[in-house]
């Protein structure tokens, strides 16, 4: 269907807009008490953080396994984590540390794909959707300006995909939160853009009438949605300059102040600016407030947590930056009454070897940790246990389907529900149920 909405939208949208607090306030007020639909913020630690140096410290292990960091007490007695997460340590009552992660892939891309989609599928017969796309489809609202799946920071593109769920669930990526969303403004003057869209409508209408093609209609619908976003007030959620300085600072040091030490003298954190992860977390909060059901914030584009060398200085710097951002996010959501309806997941694609070799740790998927926070879970607990060296899971192993099934359940999604991808004979459940799925019922 050709819509005439586009043009009208454009013509009525003005540069002035409505003040941010105004529209956010209205949205918040519109949500019925305690019935806010849930959202999820995935903090993706690209490269695979060492579990021993973060959330599963091993003070009893020999020095070359224990590493250089101390374990510290947290707000929940009995739970100890790395000294470089001091702020998160004080918020442990909201968190569940999953120390039994035990997964199958120890190659970055394959593991990243597996953790995001829940399926191992390398030959590519079926294009599986990423968790964000699944949540977008299950919880997202139709006919809203903002996409339901937004990623911040340069992410693992091949894993951040709508797969067979199609164009409506595709992730919109904010490459650099400090710069804001790219390509949201027209290249020329607004009047010029409006004029062009009007001419486009005319041409497309003729073409659509002549060819009557569903592909053409979908194309035009996508244009309509993109223009609608360009003209919406909600796009202000991408604009961090509307946030007070003191809040921006809470999420992390300003970009110039923190410089991560580099391995071998080279800049290793990839294209991401230091400090941008924190600002990404702030943007995630703004997007969740605006009703986006799934936001993924990526930390560590390029090498990131992949600390084969210089493990300790790099993990220390990354941890401190992550700690500030995460703690600010938790407190900010909490103070706005959004923590119970917003699940924060912290994880990478795997953990790292217990042994340090050459100052680094290598890939380790047999035993590692992830963290779930908020979302109405029972916080202040540890699920699963690894052995003295953090090498194997000795209690409560958690597979990828166990983990994703639990995340879906917390969000109110039936993980067994089946999708029917076009061109695939068999229906495909949201989470792979070919083996038993053991939900982490202790969190629910």
């Amino acid at each position, binding site marked *: 269907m050709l819509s005439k909405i586009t043009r009208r939208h454009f013509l009525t949208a003005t540069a002035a807009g409505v003040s941010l607090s105004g529209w956010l306030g209205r949205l918040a007020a519109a949500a019925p008490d305690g019935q806010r639909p849930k959202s999820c913020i995935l903090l993706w630690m690209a490269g695979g953080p060492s579990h021993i140096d973060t959330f599963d410290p091993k003070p009893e292990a020999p020095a070359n396994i224990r590493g250089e960091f101390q374990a510290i007490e947290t707000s929940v007695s009995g739970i100890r984590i790395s000294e470089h997460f001091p702020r998160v340590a004080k918020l442990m009552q909201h968190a569940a540390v999953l120390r039994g992660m035990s997964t199958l892939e120890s190659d970055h*891309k*394959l593991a990243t794909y597996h953790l995001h989609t829940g399926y*191992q599928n*390398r*030959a*590519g*017969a079926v*294009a599986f959707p990423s968790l964000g796309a699944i949540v977008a489809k299950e919880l997202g609202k139709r006919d809203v300006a903002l*996409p339901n799946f937004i990623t911040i920071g340069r992410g693992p*593109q*091949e894993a951040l995909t*709508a797969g067979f769920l*199609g*164009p*409506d*669930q*595709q*992730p919109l*990526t904010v*490459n*650099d939160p400090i*710069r804001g969303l*790219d*390509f*949201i*403004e*027209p*290249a020329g003057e607004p009047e*010029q853009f409006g*004029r*062009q869209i009007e*001419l*486009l409508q*005319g*041409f*497309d209408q*003729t*073409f659509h009438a*002549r*060819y*009557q*093609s*569903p*592909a*053409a209609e*979908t*194309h*035009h619908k*996508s*244009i309509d*949605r*993109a*223009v609608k*976003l*360009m003209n919406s007030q909600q796009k202000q959620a991408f604009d961090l300059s509307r946030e007070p300085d003191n809040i921006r600072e809470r999420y992390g040091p300003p970009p110039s102040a923190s410089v991560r030490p580099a391995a071998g003298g080279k800049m290793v954190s990839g*294209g991401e600016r230091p400090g941008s992860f924190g600002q990404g977390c702030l943007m995630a909060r703004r997007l969740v407030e605006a009703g986006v059901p799934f936001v993924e914030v990526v930390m560590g584009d390029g090498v990131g947590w992949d600390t084969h060398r210089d493990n300790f200085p790099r993990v220390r710097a990354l941890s401190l930056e992550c700690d500030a951002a995460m703690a600010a996010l938790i407190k900010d959501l909490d103070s706005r009454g959004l923590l119970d309806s917003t699940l924060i997941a912290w994880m990478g694609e795997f953990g790292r070897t217990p042994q340090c070799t050459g100052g680094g740790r290598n890939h380790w998927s047999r035993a590692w940790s992830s963290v779930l926070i908020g979302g109405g879970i029972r916080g202040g607990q540890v699920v699963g246990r690894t052995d003295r060296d953090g090498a194997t899971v000795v209690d409560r192993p958690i597979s990828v389907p166990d983990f994703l099934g639990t995340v879906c359940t917390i969000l109110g999604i039936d993980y067994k529900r089946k999708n029917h991808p*076009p*061109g695939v*004979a*068999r229906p495909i459940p949201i989470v792979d149920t070919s083996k038993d799925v053991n939900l982490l019922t202790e969190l629910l």
Partner: protein
Amino acid sequence: MACGKTTRGNHPVRRLTRILFSFVLVAVAAGKCQAGEAIAAELAERIDQQIDARLSSEGVRAAELADDAEFVRRIYLDLHGTVPTLEQVKRFLPDAEPNKRARLIDSLLADSRHGQYLADIWQGYLISPLADDSTKRAERFRHWLAEQFNTRKWDQIVTELITATGKMEDNPAVTYLIEGRLPRAVPDLTDLTSRFFLGIRLNCAQCHDHPFVKWKQEEFWGMAAFFTQIQTPKRAKQVYEKGVVDDPQLTLANLKDAGVPDGFIQRAPTFLGGQALSQATKTSTHRAALAQWITAPENPYFARAMVNRTWWRLCGRGIVQPVDDMHEANAPSHPQLLELLSRRFVESGFDLKFLTRAIVLSRAYQRTSQPGESADKSILRTAATEDRQAALFGRMSLKVLSAGQLYDSLETIAGPAAKVTGIDVRQGVRWEFTQFFGESGDPDPMAYRRGIPHLLRQMNSGQFAGRNLDGLVTRLGTAAERSPEEIASDLFLTILSRRPTENELRQVKSHLARSGSAAGGLRELAWVLIMTSEFSLNH
């Protein structure tokens, strides 16, 4: 590489085919004989007989032939992966020669760009985006494939891929074999080989007997066993350092030792259908035996798979749908047509250009994609009858431009992409673009699957329409003193390969009047044309 050929050369049918074929080659080389073209034209005739008979038996009207503008854009996109240049369009449209479509087809197939385009498509199928270092490999592999598609036959190409040995740098064909990492590479190779070369989805049978079709789990592992001689976990690193070598000692058992892949069954190398590897062929490597079996003229799957895939690529839907899911319970829409094309493809010595030429010469391919008005007004046009017309190839289907076609078309129109903030081109501009706009595997060519992220970038980034549109407008305007309307008309020809209609020209004029300067208005027009549904589709 060579081991496959020596054994194959002894096959009497193959030898005969080859002798016949080299005769044709020599004749063509002499420049006297248009035998290949003539045979293809004859096959195109037979394609149409089949299609038309079916249409009339179902009482479905066929659409008109596409006009020259629709045809020229379609044929360039389908054979070269880009829209034609302004000059090419301007040469073709006024040409009064009755044979001009066939001549254009011949020249496009003879151009090396044809092989490059096929290579672009096939490296996408055969290299997973999850592979490490995929850009560099894809680049090398694509060059190799282009050379193959331009100069060799399909059975030879597939044999090269399956039997490749050595390092990627020396023999890019091995990219296919070592792309997936160990140890699950064996199941992956089994899956890819059966899907892309045999048109069979065997991967479901990796873990369980297929519920709808005859493939059993043991058949998957019987095929998988052909690949184990190169692939064992112990050699994971060696594969990169030393390249692919066969070790006759290795079997599925080694694979099992490394950790049991899903559904693992111990089985000796066994061809699909149950024929075991014979004692005689055991002297060669397993892969050579497999390649020989796959590419044999009597293999019931090989030719059909490529025929169906080529038809699917050119016509938007396969004779069997989905394109790689050919089995008894999934009947072809035109069984005799599939049979005919497969037989003729085999007889041609698996000559892909011959097959392609025959299909694109047919009226079925050259029909318009417009539903049009029914001559008989009493027949109510409904969605169902419309679908029937397209499903029976009584009308061309609209295909969505692939990411590669989009990129290359934009380059044809407005030159290389500008560097743009916000787009990470560390791995190459075209690579990034095709990753962003494209999809892995072989998605339905008729489904438009791009959403807000793509359209934002399409409209507002310099990489899409922010290319040198001013330059384009200037270039069109400098030839002589030309009116804005004439330049506008050339913009339509450049971007959409057709002239504007009266109605469109009226809209353009009113647009130019509103936009202040003629140059600015024309630049805006160029932007608009690139945003149209028409541009994003191959109609």
